């Protein structure tokens, strides 16, 4: 076994907390049951790691096996990375591609290897028709750096790819190219969504949040639905604007649904608006253009609590949420009505 590979495996195993050691090693499926049983996991961590590396030596672990272990570790600790989303689009009138995973993988690898001689590409399939790709980048003259890999999660036959970029900016166009060609799309752009929570990004982009549809078959009894802002009201106290409060709660519930929001930390979008009639700038021809950035430990929950807290007005009409004809800015389409003063985007 190569020294670099041995070092890489050692460092990867060292990262794994002892409580998860056996689960991750079992998922790796490289070391056999018998081999694992010979390891005393109660020793000090350094000794355990030493023993495991020796076992890997015995089995002649390759760089690919080591990369696979790294992927599994990252899958378990996905919150440690910051994820971006890329959106791809097809040309007009193209049929849906009967996606062949094998073909995708070989095509992706080929594009990268043709451009950069030194690059390590590894794949791991997941159950939901998705694949995790790990790319270790090198240059024409240097070997790939295994300690700063890029991860890509791609769900077949969808136009989205989730990436954790930890590489030079110069490699990003090449990554985009590879994704585009392998998945048979024409264009690729980076979206303005970023979060540590991959599942939340997935929920937003695949529109799996807010599955609150009106049917004749109610699935949750009315008492369970609550926005969590009940006040125990003494019947002798009359709330002057009780009706308004109820309306706000109802609209908030319709927009956000009853369950926890996808967790995102950062959102931004461009705004172009004219000034209100009556203000001194109302006659200006040129609209105001600006960039609005939101950030919060849990952006959507924060937005959800804005209206009930009385911090913004709720207009009666809604923008369509995630309208299919629009490309980007799902966040805007969904939560736009809750912003103070209805600007036009």
């Amino acid at each position, binding site marked *: 076994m190569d020294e670099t590979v041995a070092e890489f495996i050692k460092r990867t195993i060292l990262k794994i907390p002892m409580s998860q050691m056996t689960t991750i090693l079992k998922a790796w499926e490289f070391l056999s049951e018998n081999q694992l049983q010979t390891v005393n996991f109660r020793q000090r961590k350094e000794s355990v790691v030493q023993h495991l590396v020796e076992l890997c030596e015995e089995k002649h672990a390759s760089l690919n096996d080591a990369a696979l272990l790294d992927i599994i570790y990252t899958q378990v600790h996905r919150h440690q990375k910051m994820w971006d989303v890329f959106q791809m689009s097809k040309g007009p009138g193209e049929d*849906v591609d*009967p*996606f*062949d*995973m*094998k073909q995708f993988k070989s095509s992706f690898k080929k594009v990268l290897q043709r451009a950069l001689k030194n690059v390590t590409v590894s794949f791991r*399939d997941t159950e939901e*028709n998705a694949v995790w790709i790990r790319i270790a980048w090198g240059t024409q003259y240097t070997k790939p750096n295994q300690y700063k890999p890029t991860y890509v999660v791609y*769900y*077949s*036959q*969808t*136009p*989205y790819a989730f990436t954790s970029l930890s590489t030079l900016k110069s490699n990003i166009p090449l990554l985009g190219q590879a994704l585009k060609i392998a998945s048979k799309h024409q264009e690729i752009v980076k979206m303005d969504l970023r979060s540590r929570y991959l599942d939340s990004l997935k929920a937003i*982009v*695949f*529109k*799996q949040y*807010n*599955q609150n*549809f*009106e*049917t*004749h*078959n109610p699935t949750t009894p009315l008492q369970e639905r609550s926005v969590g802002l009940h006040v125990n009201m003494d019947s002798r106290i009359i709330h002057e604007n009780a009706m308004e409060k109820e309306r706000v709660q109802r609209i908030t519930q319709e927009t956000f649904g009853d369950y926890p929001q996808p967790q995102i930390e950062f959102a931004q979008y461009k705004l172009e608006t004219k000034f209100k009639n009556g203000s001194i700038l109302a006659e200006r021809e040129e609209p105001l253009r600006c960039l609005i950035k939101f950030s919060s430990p849990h952006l959507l929950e924060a937005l959800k609590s804005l209206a009930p807290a009385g911090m913004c007005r709720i207009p009666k009409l*809604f923008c*369509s*949420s*995630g*309208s*299919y*004809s629009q490309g980007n800015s799902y966040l805007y389409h969904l939560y736009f009505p809750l912003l103070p003063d209805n600007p036009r985007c």
Partner: protein
Amino acid sequence: MEQTNTLCQDGKSEGGVLAHLERLETGVSRSHKQCEELQGAQAVGSALATKIHKLRCLRDKLRAEVKQRQARVKTSIASVEPDQTVKISEQEVLERKQENVKAILQAYRFTGLSGKLTSRGVCVCISTAFEGNLLDSYFVDLVIQKPLQIYHHSVPVFIPLEEIAAKYLQSDIQHFLFSLCEYLNAYSGRKYQADQLQSEFAAFLAGPLQRNSLCNLLSFTYKVDPRGEGFPFCARLLYKDLTVTLPTDVVITYQGTEALSTSWEEQRASHEILFRTKPLHQVFASFAKTGEMLDMSLVY
């Protein structure tokens, strides 16, 4: 001075007559006014009197009706005998009708396409099924305005919703809904077959089932007899048409360098036809059955 006096005197005496005339005049007009007022008051009074009379009649009528109903209720309670059915009041009839209608609305989703009016428009529910098994439901919330818009939906991202909408949503909404139903039912059916293969017939597979999100390209390696030594076949099922649940192309190959014996070649060809004509899980069910029959024949 004398003039004024005479005037005064005349005035006095004339004032006396004039004043008297005036007094008489005002007296007449006053009494006229009083007469009119009296007449007015009398008219109002008689109107009110008729009104009071009407109201009294109405009150008496209502009282009589209440008494009648109470008497009816009393007699109905009193006249209940154990072997007689209880008379159902109108309210109960209405309530039963309402529950009936509610139940019909709820059961409507079993037709596959149902909906509910919302404040904005209508929320359509597409309930998919395959071979009598009810599968997932998908929703499309429509806003009724010009142009017709989809407010939000739960259709998976790999179903070409935008294309179907671009073609039919504005011009022919029925066509839009039926087309979407087709795609979703076909997807659900293919997914069901693939899931069945993975769960019920895993023993027949020699490796993992390769599938994609739309379940329209499946490849797997299988053995007809899971325990036997038979040759493993590699199958590749392609469903080019997204609205079908049976594959459009089936390719079965044999992994190995030696040429297949004629019997195995025949089997390979027949399998190709099988996979193209029967749903995936049923093909494997028939493999299982022939396996059982073989077992039985071995016993004897």
